[in-house]
């Protein structure tokens, strides 16, 4: 069902867990299946210097979360903001059609964090 990259990100998720001193926290939930993701960002000079995630969801949701954190590290907020859910699924090498919706929360949570950060700053 899942390709090896997805399995790898599920089994060895990158940047999983809480971040004690995050500059900002974003959240997103999938209305469709009740999955939830939290993203923790550390931001230095407009760039994402560190990132962590916590996800309640299926394998695809967890792998997408992990994948996203790898994709944003070191990026400027402008660059990060342009990442779409499709980009994440693509970077994972594809997801089964029925599971595509599970990858939706990753980019959503990131954008939520960036929006909040901008409101705060």
């Amino acid at each position, binding site marked *: 069902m*899942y390709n090896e990259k997805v*399995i790898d990100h*599920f*089994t060895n*998720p990158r940047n*999983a*867990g*809480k971040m004690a001193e995050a500059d900002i926290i974003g*959240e997103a939930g999938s209305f*469709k*299946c*009740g*999955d*939830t*993701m*939290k993203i923790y960002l550390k931001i230095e000079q407009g760039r994402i210097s560190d990132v962590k*995630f*916590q*996800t*309640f*969801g*299926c*394998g*695809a*949701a*967890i792998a997408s979360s992990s994948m996203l954190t790898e994709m944003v590290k070191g990026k400027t907020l402008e660059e990060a903001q342009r990442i779409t859910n499709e980009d994440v699924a693509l970077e994972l090498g594809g997801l089964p059609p*029925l*599971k595509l919706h*599970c990858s939706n929360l990753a980019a959503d949570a990131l954008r939520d964090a960036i929006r909040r950060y901008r409101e705060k700053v």
Partner: protein
Amino acid sequence: MQERLVYLDHGATSPLREEVLEAMLPFLKERYGNPSSLHSPGRVIRQAVEEAREKTALALGAEPDEIFFTSGGTESNNIAIRGAARARRSKGHLITTSIEHHAVLDVCKGLAEDGFSVTYLPVDRYGLVSLEMVEKALRPDTFMISIMMANNEVGTIEPVAEIGALARERGVLFHTDAVQAVGQIPLDLRELKIDLLTLSAHKFNGPKGVGALYVRRGTPVAPLYDGGGQEKALRPGTENVPGIVGLARALELAVEELPEKTRHLLALRRRLIEGLLAMDDTVLNGHPTARLPGNVNVSFNYIEGEALLLGLDLEGIAASSGSACTAGSPEPSHVLLAMGLGHQLARGSLRLTLGRENSDACLDHLFSVLPPLVERLRKMSALYPGQS
């Protein structure tokens, strides 16, 4: 399948027994005649089908002419409910539960669209239907009660003896979907007041694609399909002879070995439940005692069932979950929700269903894999209140 496979999903389907395959093989080889043919190669096959019918009847406490072979549990349920509805001249009311398999639930929904009225009874937190509720739901135009013998997700065994007696007393047909019960718990149709009973061979180590419908003599059921008149025209089409022979043999063996198998499964189940409940934030779904010997269903708070399945699968353990993050359907198990579980617990469910070939070694492997997996998933869960 895999090198080291621990199969704990017998509620989904079960391995075909060697003895059953052996019984089927002649009919997959030299005994290929059509049971409707007049010549001897056909008559040999007709005889085999009728012997299978007798065996099946004997195993259930029924008469051979009350057994109709079908293509599986889904078809039997459809014929039983829709067929009984079709045999009526007028619309009417039927009673079922909110925890039925989709092959009952969706037939009832279909009938509701056709103008019948349907009561979906609630269940308690153990998944039990109450006799009082059934009685209160009865109306003058109620013509059928359809309540499963045992639930496929949580294994709760429903009080079908009492419900059947009530139905009989009130002159209402009683159908039970016994797909999960047949071959798993004792069942005698001479004692039970059941008019229609559904079974499916692949759930008791028989072949896929064959089932049966028990129809008590005199029960009005109209066929849904037209054709060559086989199975007394209730289910026409050339008979799946190897499947029918396999069903009968599997059922015969299952009933024969039931006491022994029950002891075996109960011992494994006890160890399984104790081990699982020893883990934090874990609850047992279903009834503590009125449950199928092979069924265990637990929910792990804060984590999602399908992720759990994936983690187990990567370690060679096959299980299932009431989580619904696949079929594109937005809701988790309707059974768990009907039992009052919150959305999160419903999504965190894990069903482990045991079979005759499972052993303590299977559980050893499970217990070496599951606790660290749950721990890992909880740690990365957005809902977990514990420290990261």
